[in-house]
């Protein structure tokens, strides 16, 4: 089955992973800007990173027939340094015209601090000013419920924001409902220990349906499985779910979200499956 991984950090993965993903049916990935495992010391460090995810990774992915999209921001962890964060935010517009950029992300909260909230709000303002889609990271463990609710509170300050162009990512059982009820997309991240498992993601699809719901691996430099989306496909099939429903989750939904970015060009290998579905 063709699929998209809408959240994966390919800068942290070896080229063999691109090949493995291609063999499993991956036609596109999207790569949010994130914490690289260490704090960068200057805005120029971020400029180099933005070049990597707007120029280098798309070329690497194309070698395996995979379309590569990206999102730009300063992540919540490094946002604790507000001065640096503001320098990075000022640099982001230099890269917003890159053809593979889908929007601003993954912004959000990490430890739910005042500085994180300040930088989060300033990046939402940046996205609104440039009419960009937004991908939002929610905290990992005990912070998740509180942080998710704080993020939703802050987003409510932007009544003109198109909720259908915003993803609340890393939802779990206790945070999915407020995200969906408010009209946002919700992303389920399949991780080996924290976040969601494939079986729990299937549970959430069965309970909440497929509308505005995404599934991703968030594969990165830590314990993670770049093949987590195929794991979800297998788990859904084992429960007897229809191929069409599974395909909506892993292919049509992410592409529908991506298409809300004005720069979006469909993955070359498959064109626009949404259009084919509509006309058939």
């Amino acid at each position, binding site marked *: 089955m063709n699929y998209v991984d809408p959240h994966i950090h390919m800068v942290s993965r070896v080229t063999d992973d691109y090949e493995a993903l291609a063999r499993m049916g991956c036609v596109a990935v999207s790569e949010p800007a994130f914490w690289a495992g260490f704090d960068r010391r200057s805005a120029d460090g971020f400029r180099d990173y933005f070049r990597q995810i707007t120029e280098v990774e798309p070329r690497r992915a194309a070698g395996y027939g995979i379309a590569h999209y990206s999102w730009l921001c300063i992540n919540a962890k490094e946002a604790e340094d507000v001065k640096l964060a503001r320098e990075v935010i000022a640099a982001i517009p230099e890269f917003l015209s890159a053809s593979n950029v889908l929007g601003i992300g993954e912004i959000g*909260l990490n*430890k*739910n*601090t*005042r500085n*994180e*909230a300040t930088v989060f709000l300033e990046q939402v303002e940046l996205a609104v000013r440039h009419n960009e889609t937004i991908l939002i990271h929610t905290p*990992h*463990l*005990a*912070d*998740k*419920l*509180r942080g998710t*609710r*704080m993020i939703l*509170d802050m987003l409510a300050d932007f009544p003109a924001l198109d909720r259908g162009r915003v993803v609340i990512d890393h939802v*779990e*059982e*206790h945070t999915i409902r407020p995200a969906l009820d408010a009209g946002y997309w919700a992303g389920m991240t399949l991780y080996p220990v924290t976040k969601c498992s494939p079986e*729990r993601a299937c*549970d959430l699809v069965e309970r909440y349906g497929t509308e505005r719901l995404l599934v991703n691996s968030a594969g990165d430099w830590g314990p993670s499985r770049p093949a987590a989306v195929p794991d979800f496909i297998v788990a859904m099939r*084992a*429960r*007897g779910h229809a191929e069409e429903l599974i395909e909506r989750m892993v292919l049509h939904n992410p592409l529908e979200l991506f298409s809300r970015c004005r720069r979006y060009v469909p993955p070359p290998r498959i064109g626009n499956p949404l259009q084919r579905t509509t006309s058939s």
Partner: protein
Amino acid sequence: MTRALSDQRFLAIRSLVVELSAAFDRVERHAAEESVELDDDIRWRLLAEAVARLAAGPGRVEAVQELFSDAYEPAWRQTGGPELFGSPGCCGR
């Protein structure tokens, strides 16, 4: 055989329960060997409470997730701001 409790699903859940049981025994055994008082550890008390919530019926996963979560204060912006909500540094962070 229904999908609700197929043999495959029974074996998967059985495995999880056996692993959980062994993990609790393991922690207690090592605590005894190291003379550690587990009841003083908030993480152990949370785990014990989580297991108790498994017997509560439907809604278990939300109940367990909320147990492992810091409380959300809707008026957080009026009560001093998010610096109050920094991590206390326990529970796996």
